[in-house]
């Protein structure tokens, strides 16, 4: 009987599980329960993706009120794809977290950690599936508040200033989005995304709508750490607990990229954003600067988590680059990179977390000689690192390949060249760490055990996913391609209404 409600379940399951976690009290129970809920959400998300690809967009009206009067949950291929990433990574991270947080977070706060994780998951799922612009803001804030909490849970005091900076930047971003939504509402009188799209297309150009879009884009850019507004990200990811870094790096910014895609393609329409307002050039330039500046920053850091954080900002540059190419293929590449980057960054941060657990440090010096002492962890790190570089047979290669193809399709030779050049920098920053791990000798008299099994399993699942999606691309590319087509040509997407009142149950 739950099938007809499936679009809303990934949001409300973690939302209702979070308070239950608090009531459960014991951290062991909370862990089991949270992992179970997250895995359930993952299963539902996969089901949603299959249904969507098969039958078209799923729409679910909350409270039985038809949109635009009520709030609509709307799952299309793009949301289902990112939803799968988010719930999947969340489940793996939760499995991983039990051992990881044991050392990094005070034991009295483990239950709070799981609760905050579930709230964050609920917020992210809500952002992905909602079809209402203001509802998106509300879920954005749920996930953000939970994120600030998660970051500040680490025992290192620097996590506090990092979380505070994140809070200030994040709230400014959210407020900008709020201003933008207000301006859209002012001109259209509606908040439903599809309805907004229909009514915005009636205006050729409007100053208020332009300003609204500008504020939304700036606000979202803060959330996704686009280049000049990325300053909050490196400290937050560096000082957060490893499990949190792994979760956030592979989900939170991706969801923000999704929000940007949603606002550009679904609500305003590519025509308005790119032709009337000329946003594509700005985004393209910022993306390229982000790739080079932050890849370079990554090469000079000594803290491995910071390296990975800067690398994240650079990789976000690739996603934005795909979007700014203004083509279906470019958007496919961007969405594909969201998927693939989640796999590799998740694996990398998990591996670093395992190192932190055993060695107590994430400085690049701590990696010396680890290739022999923690062979499984470092092998995983190596494969995920190769994926970041974009070596063939890894997932990273596929998204780079599509990016280059999309750039060439638009005759953008320089862009294609720059994408390849960016990979060279990735070779340097990954190479430095691998060099330390395999070619340097450990400090004398230190021996470290291999990471515990509960951490290795999720880590290796992600690594295998990196290889699998590097070889068999039909699933990931297929979904990304469908998503991109539906986004660029909204009329091509078949829609199914999932509503009890309308008698439209899919079965």
């Amino acid at each position, binding site marked *: 009987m739950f099938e007809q409600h499936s679009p809303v379940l990934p949001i409300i399951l973690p939302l209702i599980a979070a308070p239950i976690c608090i009531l459960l009290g014991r951290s062991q129970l909370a862990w089991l329960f949270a992992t179970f809920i997250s895995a359930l959400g993952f299963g539902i998300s996969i089901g949603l993706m299959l249904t969507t690809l098969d039958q078209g967009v799923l729409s679910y009206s909350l409270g039985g009120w038809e949109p635009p009067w009520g709030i609509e949950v709307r799952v299309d291929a793009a949301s289902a794809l990112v939803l799968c990433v988010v719930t999947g990574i969340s489940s793996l991270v939760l499995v991983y977290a039990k051992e990881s947080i044991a050392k990094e977070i005070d034991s009295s706060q483990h239950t709070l950690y799981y609760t905050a994780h579930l709230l964050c998951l609920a917020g992210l799922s809500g952002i992905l599936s909602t079809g209402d612009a*203001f509802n998106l*803001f*509300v879920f954005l*804030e749920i996930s953000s*508040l939970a994120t*600030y*909490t998660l970051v*500040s849970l680490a025992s290192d*005091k*620097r996590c*506090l*200033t*990092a*979380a*505070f900076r994140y*809070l*200030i930047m994040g*709230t*400014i971003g*959210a*407020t900008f989005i*709020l*201003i933008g939504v*207000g301006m859209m*509402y*002012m001109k259209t009188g509606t*908040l439903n995304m599809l309805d907004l799209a229909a009514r915005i297309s009636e205006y050729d150009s409007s100053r208020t709508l332009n300003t609204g879009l500008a504020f939304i884009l700036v606000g979202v850019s803060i959330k996704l750490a686009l280049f000049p507004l990325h300053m909050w990200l*490196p*400290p937050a990811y*560096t000082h957060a607990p490893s499990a949190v870094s792994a979760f956030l790096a592979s989900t939170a910014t991706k969801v923000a990229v999704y929000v940007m895609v949603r606002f550009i393609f679904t609500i305003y329409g590519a025509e308005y954003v790119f032709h009337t307002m000329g946003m594509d050039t700005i985004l393209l330039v910022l993306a390229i600067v982000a790739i080079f500046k932050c890849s370079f920053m990554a090469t000079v850091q000594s803290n491995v988590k*910071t390296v990975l954080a800067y690398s994240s900002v650079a990789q976000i540059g690739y996603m934005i680059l795909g979007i700014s190419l203004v083509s279906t293929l470019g958007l496919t590449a961007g969405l594909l990179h969201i998927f693939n980057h989640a796999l590799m960054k998740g694996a990398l941060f998990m591996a670093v977390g395992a190192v932190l657990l055993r060695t107590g440090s994430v400085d690049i010096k701590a990696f010396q000689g680890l290739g022999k002492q923690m062979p499984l962890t470092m092998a995983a790190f190596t494969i995920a690192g190769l994926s970041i570089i974009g070596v063939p047979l890894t997932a990273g290669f596929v998204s780079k390949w599509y990016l280059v193809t999309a750039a060439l399709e638009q005759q953008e030779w320089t862009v294609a060249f720059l994408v390849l050049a960016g990979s060279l920098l990735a070779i340097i920053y990954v190479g430095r760490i691998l060099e330390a791990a395999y070619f340097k000798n450990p400090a004398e008299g230190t021996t470290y055990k291999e990471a515990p099994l509960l951490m290795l399993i999720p880590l290796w699942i992600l690594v295998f996913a990196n290889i699998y999606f590097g070889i068999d691309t039909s699933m990931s590319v297929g979904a990304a391609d469908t998503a991109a087509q539906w986004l660029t040509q909204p009329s091509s997407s078949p829609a199914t209404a999932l509503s009890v009142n309308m008698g439209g149950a899919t079965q």
Partner: protein
Amino acid sequence: MSFIVDYYNYWIVVFLMMAGFYIVISANNLVKKIVGLNIFQTSVFMLYISIGNVSGGSAPIVADGITRYSNPLPHVLILTAIVVGVATTSVGLALIVRIKRAYGTVEENEFEDKDDLI
């Protein structure tokens, strides 16, 4: 003239927003930053409420003899946004208390010197 009558409200609200925004990004003291954030958000709320206002209208609660009501939708949105605002404020203030305990100061430039805040 009608131009001013039509827009004065928006302009002053924009000024207020920017005053709050300025406090957030220029203040050195973290508590003051939070105050600025609140001013910024409260002013955005005023923008929304201005959108929903209908001149000659009345509060959107049914009563006898009233034919024109203001738009209830912005009110609902802002109720939610106020709650979100106070939630953020409380978490921010809690962070400040912890920062004070850990660093001994809540002045931004002071702990940036002390610590390698990237």
